């Protein structure tokens, strides 16, 4: 007997901009209590792609303060700088250029251009504009967007390397609100589709993967859990389980029962 049965007979790695990844769970580093908590949760998640934000350095304050990039070193993780809190295409492009300089030419970015603070919904016109500029500048753009299939297609056509529709508003934990739109986006896409934002618990992540998403990106669902390390582990399993269920092909839904035990051979 072999030690383990191969689950799939083909390599099932996630391919983004020509680079392959074993984990389909991408995690953020925001909202953690401290650096050690961040490190432990990210390790438990098994994520290989980790998002960071770009902000002003504190001048003259906390000189000994640990640096996030020492906790999640770029030689171990693929760092995905985001453009969080950017409300214009110009601010987003500027943030990406600074991130590329910070990360010594690393050009994979998560583009998000937000519309307002209440919803944190993407400003689609500004997102399209920023995506076009960033692609022209040589960036590999993973783009946060709404669950609109037409916009997802437009972003792909502009040259984005991954399209990342929201499941629900950022940090809401509401889970996938519009699975049929997510499904349509997946069916039509030639680039990876990842659900980004809105996941609340493990079943939300599993559902995204069962729909056929290529991956899930989350932050608050792990960082905001009462036990972030345990939730990170749960999310890892949920993403793996959802992926395997998708590949396995679920049974069709039927309204009536269908017996599992044979009807022939009964003696009563």
């Amino acid at each position, binding site marked *: 007997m072999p030690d383990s049965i191969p689950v799939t007979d083909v390599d099932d790695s996630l391919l983004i901009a020509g680079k392959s990844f074993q984990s389909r769970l991408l995690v*953020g*580093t*925001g*909202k*953690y209590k401290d650096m050690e908590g*961040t490190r432990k949760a990210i390790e438990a998640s098994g994520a290989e792609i980790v*998002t*960071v*934000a*770009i*902000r*002003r*350095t504190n*001048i*003259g304050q906390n*000189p000994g303060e640990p*640096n*996030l*990039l*020492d906790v999640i070193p770029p030689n171990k993780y693929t*760092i995905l*700088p*985001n453009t*969080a809190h950017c409300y214009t295409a110009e601010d987003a492009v*500027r943030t990406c*250029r*600074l*991130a590329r*300089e*910070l990360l010594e030419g690393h050009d994979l970015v998560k583009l998000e251009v937000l519309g307002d603070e209440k919803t944190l919904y993407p400003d689609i016109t500004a997102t399209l504009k920023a995506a076009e500029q960033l692609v022209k500048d040589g960036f590999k753009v993973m783009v946060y967007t709404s669950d609109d299939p037409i916009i997802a297609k437009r972003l792909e056509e502009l040259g984005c390397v991954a399209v990342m529709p929201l499941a629900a508003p*950022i940090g809401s934990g509401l889970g996938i609100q519009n699975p049929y739109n997510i499904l349509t986006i997946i069916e039509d896409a030639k680039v990876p589709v990842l659900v980004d*934002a809105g996941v609340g618990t493990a079943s939300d992540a599993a559902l995204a993967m069962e729909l056929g998403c290529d991956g899930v*990106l*989350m*932050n*608050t669902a792990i960082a905001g859990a009462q036990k972030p390390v345990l939730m990170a582990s749960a999310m890892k399993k949920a993403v793996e389980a959802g992926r395997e269920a998708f590949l396995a092909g679920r049974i069709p839904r039927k309204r009536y029962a269908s017996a599992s035990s044979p009807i022939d051979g009964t003696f009563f």
Partner: protein
Amino acid sequence: MNIQINGNTQQFDDALTAAQLVLKLGLQDRRIAMEVNQEIVPRSRYETYLLRENDKVEIIHAVGGG
């Protein structure tokens, strides 16, 4: 000479390069990136990049985010 650094104006007696500024701020061992007047200053140019009166300098780093 006045230079605005991350939104705060600081005064310097002498002209200084980007490298000297980084040293003065104690950031030489930190992972940072710099822009001056919204243009990136590559790390390789810190030694020769001379800052001017009223330059707006932004020094950034990576922080937790989703």
